[in-house]
Structures are given as C-alpha cells and as structure tokens.
C-alpha cells in the first residue's frame, strides 16, 4: 500500500468522481430546531417547535436514505442543522452513517455537547467537527445567540472535544455584532487551543424569505476591511481569483445557471427529506419520501443542475465571480430570482477587486465598473480602505481573563428549551 496525504487522496478521488457525476458529497440537515436564536441564521427554528419535530425524517427514513446514498457513491457526508444534537436520536443516525463507511463532518454550535456524546465520538470518530463560535466574549456571543449561558456551554463543548483529541476546528460568521472580536476568536482558536479557524462574512436571508438576518450583515466596506486586515487572507483571495476567475471555461455549459458542484457531485437533503442542489436552494426539490435517491439524483437533480439561463445579466460575463458569493440560490433568496444580480454581492466583489488591485474587465451594464454610475464611489471606498490599513488600522486584539467553566455553572445556566440534554 502506498501512503499519500489526505489532500492528494481527496483531489484524486474528486477527479475520478467528477468524471462520471457521482454524488460524492452530501449534506443532511437533520433538524432546523436549535437552542440558540442567532440573529443572522438562515434557517433556525425554536427547540419547542413540535410541528417541525414531527415533520422531520424518522430514524428509519434516515437509515434508508443513508443506505441509498452510500450505494450511489457518496463518500463525504456533512450533518448540519439547526443544531444536530437537538435531535435526541442524532447519535443513532450518526452511528448508522459511520457504519456505512462515510467520512462524516459535523457542524454544531457545541452547546449541547456532553461527556457521553464526546465519548461516543471517540469510539466512532468523525472525519471533522466544526463548532461555530459567535464571539470571544460572553457579552458578544450571547448578544448574537440571544441565549444567556450559551457562551459557557459552547466553551465547555469545545473543551470536551479537545480533551478527547477529536478533530475539531472553529469558525464564525462575521456580523455587525461580533466583527470587533474576529481576530480575538482567531487567536483563541489557533494560539490558545491549537485548532484551525476560518470566518466568512457571506450570509443570506432566511429560507422562509424573511430578510431579518440582513440587519446584522456587514456593509461591503466592513467586509472587505476584514480581508485587508489580514495579508494571508488577501493572498488567499488573490490565489482563489486567479484559479477560479475569468469566464466560464466549459463552453458547452456556459448557458447554464449553475457553475458550482451542486447537482454534479454534491446534494443536500433537508429535515423533511427534500433533496436539492444545496442547503440554500429550495426552488427545485425532490421528495425522498416519495421516491428513491437514485431517481432523484439521476433524473430530477440532473435536470435542475442543467437549467439554462433565461436572461442576460451583468453576472453572465463577469470575470470576478470568484470574489462574489452570487449563485442561483443567493439570487433566489435575495432578489427572488435565480439569475437576478444581488446588489450587495456585486458591491462586495467590485470593492474587493479594487482594494486588492485586481483588474475588472467590462462585463455589460454594471454600475460598479468604469463608466458606471457608482464606479467613483467604489474607487473612493477602496482608496479609503487601503489608506486606513496602511495607516496602521490592522487586527485589533483585546486581553481576556481565563474562562472558568464548571459543571455546576453549566447546570444552573441550562436553557429550559434544551429538554433533550
């Protein structure tokens, strides 16, 4: 046997899997219920939502779907929510999935973690666990989550996993409430805990069409300022733009609206068993309670993935798409149409490109490009951001006292809605 590192293995497997359109990457949202009430969340429901609970796939339905996706060639599976541990039987679903030979990543907020769950994960080790940390201080974290005591429970969850040497990394979503603590969170993760950390400022309206998360979304300049504060991040963005920038390079598919891996090598399944291209895309769904995974993957999702463009927009020929989060799902949620440009994303992409000194080739009637109505505004913003950073405005750090969490404190501050733990 030959030993290769995981990156090489993954690249080679993806190359083989893309060749024949295997559903190699799956995402299953086991529930949308969550003990937290984060202001930015796109899909959370209260723990007490009994209608939501009753509508969720049963354990037996999950097993059938897991059998089918494994048979079809799924290798990497992400379990997400809501909060995955909000389901009392999540560990049963997880263990069944593990026993099928899937490489499983868990997205959790960590607040429902217990020693018993952590011990089970040691026995049935996941491929990766990602905990979202919403702030470095209790005040900020709980301002965003809306739940007193949730910060201590999250930190305790992190400790329980790290004590057991489980493959943990942390991440956050940068919003107006926590943006001043992003670099403190990064330092905490990387330097104090020795785990990976990433963040993203990209967020969308709720999937029930509510625009409420956008109230805490960073402005385009705040978002790009975070990029500029970290030279490594800027360098990664530039590499990404170099690799994925430019026009769509597969002419036979250039008239399609999707250019991601959704429906080509990945799929998402919601708590009620509806399969779609991704967790944000809900216009085309296939009900796995009514049909098989192979039927949904081979026919329904294949057709959805091949959907053709119906309108000529400035996005079609845009060569800085790599700087942008625009996709049909974001278009559906924010503009009500898969192809209609999202102004916010367009601003971020152009400001990012200008700030990084990247060329923006003309791509139709775009107000943020040279000659456009708001081009001067973007250039001014980019200059001002660059001067701000060059003038010494870089990452801000604060000093914190060590965090002490005890079992007693955890019990006292338990959220009453977390009846399952």
């Amino acid at each position: 046997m030959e030993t290769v590192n995981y990156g090489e293995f993954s690249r080679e497997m993806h190359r083989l899997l893309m060749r024949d359109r295997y559903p190699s990457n799956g995402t299953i949202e086991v529930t949308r219920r969550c003990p937290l009430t984060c202001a930015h969340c796109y899909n959370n429901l209260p723990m007490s939502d009994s209608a939501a609970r009753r509508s969720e796939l049963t354990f037996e339905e999950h097993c059938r779907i897991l059998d089918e996706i494994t048979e079809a060639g799924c290798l990497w599976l992400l379990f997400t929510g809501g909060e995955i541990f909000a389901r009392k039987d999540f560990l049963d679903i997880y263990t069944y999935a593990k026993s099928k030979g899937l490489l499983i990543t868990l997205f959790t907020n960590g607040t429902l973690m217990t020693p018993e769950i952590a011990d089970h994960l040691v026995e049935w080790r996941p491929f990766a666990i990602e905990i979202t940390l919403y702030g470095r201080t209790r005040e900020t974290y709980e301002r965003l989550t809306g739940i007193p005591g949730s910060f201590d429970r999250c930190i305790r969850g992190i400790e329980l996993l790290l004590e057991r040497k489980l493959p943990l990394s942390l991440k956050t979503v940068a919003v107006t409430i926590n943006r001043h603590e992003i670099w403190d969170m990064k330092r905490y993760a990387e330097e104090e805990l020795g785990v990976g950390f990433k963040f993203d400022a990209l967020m969308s309206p709720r999937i029930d069409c509510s625009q409420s998360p956008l109230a805490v979304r960073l402005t385009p300049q705040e978002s790009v300022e975070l990029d500029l504060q970290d030279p490594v991040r800027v360098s990664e963005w530039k590499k990404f733009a170099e690799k994925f920038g430019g026009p769509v390079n597969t002419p036979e598919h250039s008239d399609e609206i999707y250019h991601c891996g959704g429906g080509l090598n990945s799929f998402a399944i919601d708590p009620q068993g509806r399969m779609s291209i991704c967790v944000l895309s809900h216009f085309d769904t296939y009900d796995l309670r009514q049909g098989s995974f192979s039927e949904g993957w081979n026919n329904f999702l294949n057709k959805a993935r091949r959907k053709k463009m119906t309108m000529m927009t400035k996005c079609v020929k845009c060569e800085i798409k790599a700087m942008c989060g625009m996709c049909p799902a974001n278009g559906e949620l924010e503009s009500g149409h898969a192809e209609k440009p999202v102004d916010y994303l367009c601003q971020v992409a152009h400001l990012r490109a200008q700030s990084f000194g990247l060329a923006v080739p003309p791509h139709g009637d775009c107000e943020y490009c040279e000659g456009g109505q708001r081009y001067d505004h973007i250039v001014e913003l980019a200059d001002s951001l660059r001067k701000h950073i060059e003038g010494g405005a870089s990452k801000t750090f604060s000093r914190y006292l060590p965090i002490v969490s005890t079992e007693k404190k955890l019990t006292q501050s338990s959220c009453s809605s977390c009846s399952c733990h």
Partner: protein
Amino acid sequence: MSEMDVLSSCFVKAEELVTRHIAGETLIVPVKGQVGDLDSIYTLNEVGTRIWQLIDGDTPLSNIVNAIQSEYEVTEQEATRDVLELFDTLQSAGLIRRATKSEG
C-alpha cells in the same frame, strides 16, 4: 515465523471497518474503536482488491497466492512476494489478523 508457516495461515479482516467500492477504487474505511488508524483511509489497487476479496478467515495464504498467480499470469515467486508484502502491511495497519482455529 517462517514463510511456510505464514503461507499456511488464514487471516480475518478486522470487524470494525467498511470496504467501499467507488469510481473503480477500493477504499477501506475504519469506522470504530481502535481498528487501523481512524484518521486514515486505505486504498487498494486492482490486485490488492482481489487479494482483499479472498481474505475470508478460512482461505490459506498459499491458496490466495495460487489465485493471484493464475488470474494475473505472474510467476509464483512474484505472486508470493506481492501477497506477503500486502499481508504484512495490512497486519501492521491492524486491518487483518491471523484467524484462530475456531474461525477457520
């Protein structure tokens, strides 16, 4: 242990691993407990996959060597070397162990 003893032995696969066949590749995925290295995924080439299929707890290695020799038209010496090398690796990785008499 002599080569002769090894060739007359039978081996069983560890129980807590899963064999996946995806896109023409054979993957051995440890799923539970201390089997193999839980952070590793093991892949086998075509010959390795055939050898893996023949490990059933009651087929002596010598029979597996014979099967490989005839199916892949290689010399007995080549087949023996390949089979012993793979078994050594699989055993070191904790993916197989020598079968007890009751398992045979």
